[in-house]
Structures are given as structure tokens and as C-alpha cells.
């Protein structure tokens, strides 16, 4: 049965993913959410851990369901020569191959770029590894917080005067995955113009380093090594988060002197002459922050945000997970949306950060059951007769 036409800018592009956990699957998700047909190669002998975390049912694993919407699943046991051959037949019908599996694994399976080119000369292949695919440190492995530590990013994150504890431990994988999707689409444009595919070797550490590019260039020019600085900002004061009633927090930035005057007036702060300029406020920053905190603590964060924004001051409630889940705007705009779910009928997911007009890709189907698209891939794409597919299942080549 042909798959529904979902539209979107990447309609007609087929992606094969040999990915696990988060960064690689996030790349696949982004391409699928832009309209590509993304097929995840899976096997009971070598499962994506995300199908196991947080439950016993491989088809209802919370982490997996939260990422893999509009992904197709095909089962292949790549430890068998026959299975590998089937994967190569899939490659022959794909535009892009993504992997973020163990270093050397693609090469050992004969799925390195040189081999894939023989199967599909204009293939685009992308590999995500902590340090990239090869080089003196390519042997090292780690998890997202390690990328963030190595990259220089975490060094810049911490409360003033403390060990730079870095971004939240979950930060890193998804951003690396988004950069990977970008590189793939750039390569698709190149292929469309020239007919030429290519190999893309992504370093997750460098992905994190990219996020502090301006700080690094500043260091190179000025010689000053940037440090973790809490919420301090060289060009705005006050700039930070302040406590409100019931344990909530609000972020407030005074982008210029006029906003400072408006803020001081709204919160009934004292305004000594010295505080009229940025330099004067920076010199007295901690006292100003303490004075603001002494006033904000009586306010509800949302109400104060509304009050200050009406005066032109950028002030926003710092959102907890409960605040985010119950945010009307995100539900209303499609920041959250519903997809199909095999067990519960529907499931809420986090939608893409973009809207497109016209021809936005439809996002309707939740994450696939293991092997849900075996018949589509083996029957329609590879053209195997039903009897052969049944036989492959019997012999656990499809497992």
C-alpha cells in the first residue's frame, strides 16, 4: 500500500537511518517533519535503547515515542550476510543514509562511504560521532554532557563564583542532530544542482563549540578568556532572573537606560544618579540585583511579566516543566500537537519550530511499531514477493 502523501519541502527524499538514542534519531525526525520519507533500520538483535527505556513494551516506549514521529520502521538483522545485502538494496533506493552508531561499525558492515557509492553513486551519507568519524581522538566516546564539557560550552555556564556546572545534562544531542539535518539539506541542494552526493562527518563536540562562536572569536581578538558569568551581561544591567512569589522566577533585562528608568519606577526602586548610566549600574550590579529581588518576591511571575512588558521592558516568567505543559499558547499555535498512537489512539508531541505556507509537511503519525513498515519496504521498495518476505521472517533475517 502506498504511503500517504504528506507534502512538505523535502517530499520525495528518502532517508535511511541507522541511528540510536537521541542525536541521530533527532536528525531523522527533523527531516521527516520537513516531508522526507525516513526509514529506520531496526532489529531485535540490536535495538535502539530508546525502545527499552522506561517500560517493557518495545512498541510503547516513552522516550522512543517522544522523538520518532513520521518515521518508518523496517526490521533487518544486519548480523546476517543476507540482512546486510537487504540494507544495501535499501541504500540503492535512498537519497541519504544517516548513522550515529559505534565508530568503525559502518565500515565493518561494508557500509562506509566508498562502498555506498558503488551501490548508489550520488548517495549523501552523514555520520555523527563525539569527535567525528576519524582522527587522533576519534577512539574516544562519551555522552551529550561530555560533548558540552569538551566543547567549551559548559565552561561558560554556571552561577557566579562556582564550578561551571554547565548546561542541563540533557543538552547537546538534539542540537547536534539539528546541525546534521542542516548539513544534509545543504548537500541535497548541491546534489540537485550538480548530481553529486557526498560524505558528511559531523563532530558532536564541534556542534556544541559552534554555539559559542562569537565568544571564541572575541577571545582570539581580545585575548580575554570568557568565563562562566551567571546571568551577567556586559551591555545590559540589570540582566538576570529574580525570585517571585511561590518559588517562581522572572527574567528581566534592561536593554538601555530608558528601560532601567521604567523598571525602577515600576518596582519603586531607589535611583541614585550614578545608576543613570550602564557603567554606573554595572559597578553596583549586585546591590541593584538584590534591590530588585526584594521587590519581585511579592509578585506573581506571570503578572509581573505582563506589567513590565506593557512598559516595554522584556520580562518573562521562567517556565518550569509544569508551566510549559500547561501553556495555552503552545497548544493553540501547534507548538504541541496530536499524532496517532497505536495503544492510546492519540499522543501529544512537541511540534516543529516552524510553520510553512503553503505546503507544510503533515505530521500525523506517531512513532512506528517495530517493523511496522516491513511490508512497504520489502514489498514495495525492494519488490520482494510475499512468500519471500514470509521466509525472511521465518529465518529471522527480518527480526
Amino acid at each position, binding site marked *: 500500500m502506498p504511503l500517504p502523501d504528506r507534502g512538505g519541502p523535502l517530499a520525495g527524499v528518502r532517508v535511511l537511518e541507522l541511528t540510536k538514542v537521541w542525536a541521530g534519531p533527532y536528525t531523522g525526525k527533523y527531516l521527516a517533519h520537513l516531508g522526507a520519507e525516513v526509514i529506520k533500520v531496526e532489529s531485535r538483535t540490536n535495538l535502539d535503547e530508546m525502545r527499552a527505556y522506561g517500560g517493557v513494551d518495545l512498541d510503547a516506549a516513552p522516550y522512543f515515542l517522544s522523538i520518532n514521529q513520521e518515521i518508518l520502521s523496517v526490521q533487518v538483522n544486519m548480523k546476517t550476510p543476507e540482512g546486510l545485502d537487504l540494507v544495501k538494496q535499501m541504500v540503492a533506493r535512498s537519497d541519504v543514509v544517516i548513522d550515529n552508531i559505534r565508530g568503525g561499525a559502518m565500515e565493518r558492515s561494508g557500509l562506509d562511504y566508498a562502498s555506498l557509492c558503488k551501490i548508489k553513486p550520488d548517495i549523501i551519507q552523514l555520520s555523527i560521532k563525539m569527535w567525528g568519524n576519524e582522527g587522533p581522538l576519534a577512539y574516544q566516546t562519551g555522552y551529550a554532557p561530555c560533548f558540552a564539557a569538551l566543547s567549551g560550552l559548559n565552561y561558560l555556564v554556571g552561577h557566579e563564583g562556582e564550578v561551571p556546572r554547565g548546561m542541563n545534562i540533557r543538552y547537546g544531542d538534539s542540537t547536534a542532530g539539528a546541525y546534521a539535518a542542516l548539513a544534509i539539506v545543504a548537500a541535497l541542494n548541491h546534489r540537485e544542482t550538480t548530481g553529486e552526493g557526498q560524505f558528511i562527518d559531523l563532530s558532536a563536540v564541534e556542534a556544541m563549540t559552534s554555539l559559542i562562536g562569537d565568544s571564541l572569536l572575541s577571545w582570539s581578538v*581580545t585575548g580575554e578568556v570568557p568565563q562562566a558569568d551567571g546571568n551577567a551581561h556586559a551591555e545590559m544591567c540589570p540582566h538576570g532572573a529574580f525570585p517571585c512569589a511561590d518559588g517562581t522566577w522572572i527574567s528581566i533585562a534592561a536593554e538601555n537606560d530608558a528601560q532601567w528608568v521604567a523598571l525602577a519606577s515600576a518596582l519603586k526602586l531607589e535611583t541614585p544618579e550614578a545608576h543613570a548610566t550602564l557603567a554606573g549600574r554595572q559597578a553596583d550590579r549586585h546591590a541593584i540585583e538584590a534591590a530588585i529581588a526584594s521587590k519581585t518576591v511579592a509578585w506573581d511571575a506571570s503578572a509581573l511579566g505582563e506589567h513590565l512588558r506593557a512598559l516595554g521592558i522584556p520580562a518573562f516568567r521562567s517556565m518550569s516543566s509544569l508551566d510549559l505543559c500547561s501553556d495555552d499558547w503552545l497548544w493553540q499555535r501547534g507548538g504541541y500537537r496530536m499524532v496517532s498512537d497505536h495503544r492510546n489512539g492519540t499522543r501529544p508531541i512537541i511540534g516543529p519550530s516552524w510553520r510553512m505556507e503553503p505546503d507544510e509537511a503533515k505530521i500525523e503519525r506517531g512513532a512506528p511499531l517495530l517493523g511496522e513498515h516491513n511490508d512497504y519496504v520489502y514489498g514495495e521498495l525492494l519488490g520482494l514477493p510475499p512468500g519471500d518476505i514470509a521466509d525472511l521472517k521465518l529465518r529471522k533475517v527480518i527480526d
Partner: protein
Amino acid sequence: MSALKGTLIVELAERPCGEYCGKLLADFGAEVIKVERPGGSPTRKMGPFKDGIAGPERSTLFAFFNTNKKSVVLDTANPADCARLAALLARADALIDDHAKPFMAHEEVARRFPRLVHCLITPFGQGAPEDWQIAGPLGVINAGGWAWHTPSETPPDKPPLKGAGRFLPDYEAGIDAALCVASSLYRQKRTGSGQFVDIAEVEVQINRVDCVLGRMLAGEQEPSHARTAYDMGGPAAAFACKDGFLYIFMTTKGHWKGLRELMGDPAWMAEFPEDWLEFSCTPVRVDLFRQHFAGWAGTQEKHVVSELGQKLGVTIVPVNSAADLPGNIQMQHRGFFQKLTHPVLGEALYPTASYRMSKTPVTLTSPAPALGEHDGEIA
């Protein structure tokens, strides 16, 4: 050869998010013409500056976000300049903007330039209340939840943090915007028509935490006001060492075994069950571990101990500073930093891209343009 060679992009953006979107595409080889107001983009007025002296060609921030671009000055309050801009858009493939009140409404862009890809980045997306759209990066990272949960294990009396540097959410939004523009350009090549792309910076923030927040939306984990709601538990953390900081991540028996070897198996380690990380990782044990480990870490050098650890299967890494990176042998091997000479800033090291592309490598061919440097190139 570069991936987007032959593509003409007009950039009306004046914030780091839109400028980063333009930079990512310019670094793929697109011709990006940055249209600046008389006096220049506001980012030219942001520091740090060369020698601490402000000036339109002295901002390191502008220099980073605008490599490989051209600059023309147009005054959109002047009808003649508006006509020149329209003529430019008529021959362009894409337009990048990041103003809550754009130069031209997207319906009008679509009517007058149906082939154009039009990307508009705003804090909360199209249709959001006007007063929300004044959010800067601090507002966006707080409204998107990462600030609340950063760093991991932040106690309730410490403020949520803005993340690394001043513009972390701008980078994130720039990536998604560039991805959408590149995708839409691909569609344009195939169909000849354009699209309007509406990017919400806050939605980029929440998308980045899909498999954590998504489980809460679905009711599989209870959402809460806890600052630790995104955390994983376990002993992973940064520690001060002799020459800076190091970070250790441990979740398995194998990690623990390797660490015992690395640390010379002191007596206190024998008190921990071999598989405690997997089956009995209690807060009490985590605290005890950290106390002992902190003492030892203080005597270690970050690069030395990390290399020894990696060879024993321990995921221990240095918390690198800016100054550690250019000397990193892997980054050198990959050519991640590139020297580029700017007429005012001089020669400096620029980070390039995390993706090494075999046929269309990202190369910085020109430094950020001087204000109006390419005025002569447009009619």
C-alpha cells in the same frame, strides 16, 4: 565548490538569530547580501570590540555572525531605496528577516515575489501578542524552559541561568531557520515556487528537549515546578581539578570498574557495590562518591587524567575553556578553526562548522563586510 553556490539571499535581519541563519547559509556558499540601515546593523554596536574601542568595524560579535556576506546600506524610509530593495528581492532566491514588524508583510511578499523563500524569525512566532515579541535571548531561554533547568541539580534558591554566552537561543533558532530555508530552496529548485517560513524561537527551545518534555506532555512523567525535572540522577558532574575543571559521566558497572583502576582503588571505593550505578544509585551514595572524588580530582590535571580515563573506559573529560580549543589535536586534524584576516580586527581564529563535507567543505572566504562595502553591486 560549495553547496549553495549560485543562490542569492537577502538578509534584512538585525539580531544574532537572523544573522546566524544568514551566516550558516553564506558559509555553504550562498551569496548573502546583508541590507543594513544607515548607521549599520545594531549588532555592529555590540561588543566586545577590538582594543575595547567601539566602532562599526570593530565589533567581534558582528565579525563572527557575518562572515562570507556582503553589505549594502538601504534606508527603507526612502522610496528610492525601497524600490532598489524590491528590485533586489525580484532576483533573489530567499529573504531572511527577524523583526516582529517585518519590512514587508508575508502575504505581500508572497504576492509580489511568489518564487521567493521568505523566512521570518520571531521570539514566539506569528500571531503572538505584540508585547511578547520584545523578548531577547534571556527571555527566550527562560520562556522555553532551559533556564529553569540549568545547571542540573540547581537548588530552588539559585536563579535560572541564561546558558553559554549571551546568545545561545539565537544560535538554536538560527539553525532551524537555516534548515528550513535550505529545505525550501530545495523545493524551489524542484517546483519553482517559494514558501513563507515562520520560526518561533521559543518552539526551537522546547523542541530540543522533545524526549523529556514530550513524556511529560503524554503523562508518562509528572511535570512539576522542580528545578531538577529534566535531570537524570546519578553522580555525573563537573569538579574542580588542579588546572581547571573536569567532567565525569558514569552509569555502568564498566565505568565504575575503570574508575577504580584509574584512582588506584582506594579503600572507600570497595564500600560501594560493584553495580551501584545501575541498581543502587541512591542520593546518599552519590553524595559520598562526590565527596571522595572531589578530593582526588583536585590533585589531577584535566587533560592527563582524561586521556588515562578514556583508555580505561571511563568517560572523564576536561571542561575546556576557549583557550584550550585551538590546540586540541582533533580540532586541528579536522581544521575546525580557520585563520581569517579582517581589515580592522586583524588576523584571528574563527570557528567554522561541525560538519566536514567531502565535496562542499565550509570555508570562510571573506571576513564580515564593512558597512556598505558592496553598495556599488546593486542597482
